[in-house]
């Protein structure tokens, strides 16, 4: 059902080789963007995969996106790839032509970082926005707080979601040299990203779904690497005079982790293929994949930490950084909450899930 084309394999290999040339950073949690690596990623074409050719993009599919994201995950690199895809798709789908041409070429060539500022303090991802808009002579003014805004210190532009009478509306805010991850705005001048009459909801949803595909693909790569490191550790680490692999209490659990990772692989590949299906099928498939990957991630994180013991919790050890990254990804762009909410609201709209179509 699923094999990569020779071009997709070449893309995978070039991303893998690029990442191996950049030394790992022994650090976890939010961190600055390594600009040299980011520009090398841009040079490979990785940042404009879903963008049109007129802005330097590649018009690629969900499969290329999955391939690149899985390599980032495997290498355990913390880069704003999820955030960049989120912003890029939003720009492609709802931005005015002016804003597209203003923001996308820089996003694609790696010279500027554009992020979506959506989360607000003390609110779930799906809550209506409290960020408000007033329209004056000089255009839009924004009032409110967005936090956390990922990579805010590196960003040159934020796409700020605002409460605009019950529908999704998005503003462009130029930022520079921000400190921290909170965007506190009082009468801040901004531009509307789209035309006033634009139907934004579908584009907002699609951008979130495709960014979710990046999240789960990156998580799959990280889980593969974490499982490989764990089996290798179990085979070499000795206690009570024998390798840990000889203890069934560990080898049986490692088998369960393998099953979780393989099921995650199935749904990630399936979601990659469904990325450009019709809206409902795309949303439901990616949403279900997100739930399956979530269960796998939590399982992998707990078991990889436990089976390694203390060494797995050190920042200098690769498996430790992978489980920190997996936990970040698990909660990126709202985590499972918006997907579960959507699936719950349509739970009785279908008799069963159609996989074979």
């Amino acid at each position, binding site marked *: *059902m699923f094999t990569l084309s020779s071009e997709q394999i070449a893309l995978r290999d070039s991303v893998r080789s690029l990442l191996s040339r950049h030394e790992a950073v022994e650090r976890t949690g939010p961190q600055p963007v390594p600009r040299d690596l980011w520009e090398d990623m841009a040079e490979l074409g990785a940042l404009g995969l879903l963008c049109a050719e007129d802005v330097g993009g590649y018009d690629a599919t969900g499969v290329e996106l999955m391939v690149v994201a899985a390599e980032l995950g495997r290498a355990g690199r913390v880069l704003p790839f999820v955030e960049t895809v989120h912003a890029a798709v939003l720009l492609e789908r709802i931005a005015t032509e002016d804003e597209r041409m203003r923001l996308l070429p820089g996003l694609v060539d790696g010279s500027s970082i554009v992020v979506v500022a959506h989360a607000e303090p003390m609110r779930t991802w799906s809550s209506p926005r409290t960020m408000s808009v007033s329209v004056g002579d000089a255009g839009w003014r924004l009032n409110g707080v967005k936090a956390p805004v990922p990579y805010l210190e590196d960003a040159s532009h934020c796409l700020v979601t605002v409460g605009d009478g019950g529908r999704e509306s998005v503003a462009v805010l130029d930022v520079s040299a921000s400190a921290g991850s909170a965007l506190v705005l009082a009468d801040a001048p901004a531009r509307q990203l789209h035309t006033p009459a634009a139907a934004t909801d579908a584009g907002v949803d699609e951008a979130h779904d495709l960014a979710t595909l990046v999240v789960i693909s990156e998580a799959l790569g990280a889980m593969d690497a974490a499982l490989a490191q764990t089996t290798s550790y179990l085979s070499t680490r000795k206690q009570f005079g024998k390798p840990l*692999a000889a203890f069934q209490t560990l*080898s049986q659990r490692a088998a369960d982790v393998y099953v979780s990772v393989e099921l995650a692989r199935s749904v990630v590949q399936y979601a990659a293929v469904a990325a450009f299906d019709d809206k409902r099928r795309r949303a439901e498939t990616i949403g279900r994949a997100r739930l*399956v990957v979530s269960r796998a991630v939590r399982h992998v994180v707990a078991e990889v930490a436990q089976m390694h013991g203390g060494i797995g919790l050190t920042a200098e050890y690769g498996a430790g950084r992978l489980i920190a990254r997996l936990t970040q990804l698990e909660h990126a762009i709202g985590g499972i909450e918006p997907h579960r909410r959507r*699936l*719950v609201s349509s*739970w009785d709209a279908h008799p*069963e899930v159609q996989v074979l179509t």
Partner: protein
Amino acid sequence: MPDELRAPLRDGLEATPEQIRATQRILNAAGLAVPGWPAEWGGRDWTDLEKFIWLSELQSAFVIPPLAANVGMIGPVLAEFASPALKKRFLPATANLDVWWCQGFSEPDAGSDLAALRTSAVRDGDAWVVNGQKIWTTMGQHADWMFALVRTDPEAKKQQGISMLLIDLQTPGVTVRPIALIDGGHEVCETFFDNVRVPADQLVGEVNKGWDYAKFLLGNERVGLAAVASTKARLAQTKRRAAQIADLSGEHVDSALIDRFVALEAELMALEVTVLRESGDSEAGRANPVSSILKLRGSELEQQVMELTLDVAGPMSAVWDIGVDGMPIWAARSMPNYLNDLKATIYAGSSEVQRLIISSTILGLRA
């Protein structure tokens, strides 16, 4: 397929032997009873994907699947390893369920460690004389014949002294005793052999090669494939039923139940995609990682769906009997059915055996 033959599975009742036989004969007449067999014996040489589609269609129409012991177990073994005379004698009758087979593998001291089996067969003239005991013989009380693993060389290393015999259960010295189970039924039996004479030409293939045939059979079983299809059908059924039961507000299904449906549909999707993802890779008779994934995870999800059905039935689950006023059969039978299905993670290679296969052959974790 006549409705009365589909009612048992739809309602969650055990099918009677007559219903099982009648269904398989209709399928066989349509060329759909033994698609996994070689074409020469009525099969279709289908891939796993084609078999999965076939199983899914049977399950979603609540058709009683062809008898596993005949179609999934002994049929393929005979077609691959038996003498031309045994094939001719048994394969057409096996496909049509004119001969009802049961499996004689497990023994009281040989469960997951199957090669520890002790039932013996000693050559005496033109017969093998069998002594010993088998257990967990599924539907042994309805069976005509048993395919049994017996020890023919007590001196050899434990896997190497085993042969496969075909035993007519009417032979003097055979006693079949049904075992009462916690679901109130008698789905499995104990079978005792006391100096049972089995004609020598009923030995499958070669003497002392039985372990190879058993491995072929178990690799072929594809229990997981069937479980994915049937669990999906059962989940859809439970969802329809949940929507008919009133709760506090009189119309809404409890949100915690909805979460479970949503999660199970996602997990089943993952398993089904795994079937499709690997369907090109598997060869008959060879254990592959997907068989283990499907058996391990498929049986867990099957049990979770049974548990959900039991929870949806709520207070009605206390009934057990059918024919109580106002109580649908599925709800009345939900508790025994749940209890019965606790077997799913135990039979056909327990979850622990599947994990052992994965950890040793795929992950390379060895003592």
